């Protein structure tokens, strides 16, 4: 009789496949996970507390640091919440700039995910291909906002900078290029037997689970729920664009993979249309008071970020600082299902499951 015992394995906080400072305490029986306990908070910076002492414009840079891979959408959710409270009408041109920025950022975010996800499986090349394209987007956003990652681009009432000369043409040229590259991605990875065997039927959950665990974004859509806030609760000017909400029925890691790549295509569609419709001139800022003071009361808005539903709750007492600011951070919610998915899985599946959820630790920890 062999005496066996379970092994406690600490994955993280510094571990290559946790994509940040995330810790998982695994109980292993051989290589099979019997229990998983996520430990988070290593990146908690108290954004919400800090924000209580800042004016709204000053808070925007803090939102950049939440989901630092997709900072534009975070920028937007805050200004959108304030604008909703104050009933500010945004100039046409600013709306288009916002949409372009957000969609470009979404593509960049999905690209980063794609690269790192395949890298988790040990294939190094896709990461570099993804970064090559992402670099182009970052350059575009850099020209627009002056920053490559933490853009701090949007303001209550509009955007900070207008598009520079020739920027739109660059964006226009980028779209067909990206489409071509996307085909290459599919050829390189999507049909790879090893990749398929590692993602198909791995980390599967049902639609009911997804709703129950408050999953959002691709994690929800991969179970067949046709739900995208851009389409179903249109904000900004998303109702002007013709795009599809991508869903898959599998509910497994591969379904999420497919959804994300297809979503890049949809974002490209939006970018294309936005460039076509882009108003040639006009203001980029609405007339807003110098000091932004939302009316007394509270508001909760939600938008479709790159990883799911980003929400922003503001309770205002009519002062220039928020009384209480709270972000609904999609990664934080999406990560909750992880222990359930990991139970009984091989330790190698840990990375395909965790990777497919697509978390950004800055967002998980707030």
């Amino acid at each position, binding site marked *: 009789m062999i005496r066996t015992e379970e092994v406690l394995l600490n994955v993280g906080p510094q571990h290559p496949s946790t994509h940040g400072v995330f810790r998982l305490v695994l109980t292993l029986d051989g290589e099979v996970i019997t229990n998983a306990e996520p430990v988070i908070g290593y990146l908690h910076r108290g954004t919400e507390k800090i924000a209580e002492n800042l004016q709204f414009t000053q808070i925007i840079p803090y939102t950049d640091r939440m989901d630092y891979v997709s900072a534009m959408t975070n920028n937007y959710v805050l200004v959108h919440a304030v604008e909703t409270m104050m009933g500010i009408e945004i100039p046409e041109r600013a709306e288009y700039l916002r949409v372009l920025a957000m969609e470009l950022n979404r593509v960049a975010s999905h690209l980063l995910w794609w690269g790192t996800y395949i890298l988790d499986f040990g294939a190094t090349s896709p990461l570099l291909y993804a970064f090559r394209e992402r670099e182009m987007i970052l350059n575009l956003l850099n020209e627009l906002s002056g920053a490559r990652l933490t853009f701090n681009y949007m303001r209550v009432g509009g955007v900070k900078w207008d598009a520079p000369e020739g920027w739109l043409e660059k964006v226009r040229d980028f779209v067909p290029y990206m489409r071509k590259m996307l085909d290459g991605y599919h050829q390189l990875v999507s049909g790879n037997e090893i990749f398929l065997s590692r993602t198909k039927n791995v980390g599967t959950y049902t639609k009911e689970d997804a709703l129950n665990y408050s999953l959002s974004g691709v994690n929800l859509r991969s179970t067949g729920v046709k739900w995208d806030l851009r389409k179903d609760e249109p904000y900004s000017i998303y*109702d002007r664009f013709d795009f599809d909400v991508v869903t898959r029925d599998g509910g497994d890691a591969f379904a999420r993979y497919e959804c994300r790549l297809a979503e890049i295509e949809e974002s490209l569609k939006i970018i294309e249309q936005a460039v076509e419709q882009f108003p040639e001139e006009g203001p980029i800022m609405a007339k807003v008071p110098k000091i932004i003071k939302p009316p007394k009361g509270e508001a909760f808005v939600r938008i479709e970020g790159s990883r799911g539903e980003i929400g922003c709750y503001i309770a205002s007492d009519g002062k220039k600082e928020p009384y209480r600011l709270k972000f609904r951070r999609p990664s934080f919610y999406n990560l909750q299902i992880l222990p359930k998915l990991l139970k009984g899985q091989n330790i190698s599946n840990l990375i395909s499951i965790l990777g497919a959820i697509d978390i950004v630790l800055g967002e998980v920890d707030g």
Partner: protein
Amino acid sequence: MSGDKDLERLKKEAVAKAKAEAAAKRKAKELAAQGASEEAPADKSSGDTADDLAKKKAEAVAKAKAAAAAKRKAKELAAQGANEEAPADESSGDTADDLAKKKAEAVAKAKAAAAAKRKAKELAEQGASEEAPADESSGDTVDDLAKKKAAAVAKAKAAAAAKRKAKELAEQGASEEAPADESSGDTVDELAKKKAAAVAKAKAAAAAKRKAMGQAEGGDEGDDLAKKKAAAVAKAKAAAAAKKKAAEGGSGSGDDAKAKAIAAAKAKAAAAARAKAGKGAATEEPTEPKQPSPNQKYLDKYVEIIKKHLGEEVLEDSYINNLSKDVPTLVAKREAYYKIAEFLKFNESLGFDYLSEIHGSDFETHMEVYAHLYSYKNKQSVALKVKLDREQPEIESVARLWAGADWPECEAYDLLGIRFTGHPNLRRIMLGEEWIGYPLRKDYEPYDVEV
């Protein structure tokens, strides 16, 4: 051991200190709150409304002539609207008339902000009291209407928003009145036409599309309306194109609409047209009679179902949160919170199967837990709030209903100290168990200032 004890003692001291400070602060707050509450009439929500209204009106008054003109126009239109509506409902027509007149007067009094405030309050009350016997929902209508009008005038720029609201009104009017009475359908048309004339600007493109989309379900009538509007706004080319696109978009010819939209967007007229239309819109915009939020009927439904099944006493308050995209908001009594949450999830006709967000807030007088729920079945949102005792913030956990509430509740516990009873694993998820104090509380003092 002794080290531990020391730590314990320090902790206690820190807590005591924090508490003392909190008490002091709270007292100050209470004093202030008392002042406020004295002002507030018995009914809190209506008090708030009136208050807000008054404030906005004061602003509006300061904005002088443009506003005054707008009011006058508003009155006219309201009167006209009332006349047309008269056959349908005599008493409500009168009310609207009265109301418009009074408002005009109030505005005319320019500088006397205080007077305006008083009047506004009276007006709101009067409006409410007059209508109450006749019809409850229409009473609310007028109330809301008044409020919205004030807001619109206050901000000439908010024209488009107002328009959208008016549009909703038209829509609702159409859908509600059409089956009952043919003539009222005409009313809606009339109204739409006027509106179209008013908003001759490119900015409206999106709104128009949205409207057309909304009216697609309204059938022929909606189509007609959109068409008429499109004709009316021939002045600004861009806007016209966009609108046509919208109308067609409603009837389903996508490509054409797209091409037109592109043309529209390209038209350089946009900026100029907007600037020009700005003033016109500002003056005519408020002429639209305001309507209650389109979500009012959902709120009424929720409240009715909840009260029917769980009793009259479970809800502390319920209202439409206008600041938050008109989300129906329910404020549960502390004891009934879990029951209501459970009911919201499992009731057939409510079916809120998705918890979008749950968090706590410290309002110094009390703690509050705010949950935003969504029903994928009915495509409807609701916000559920509950107020907690600040000294003993404790509430049932809803993690058993929505597994997604697990971590957010931990977060609220960690940062605010709200205890969720029945939570599967309540822990300090962000800061760790050894952290002292609850940072998101307003009276939080860091134990270690170095951190």
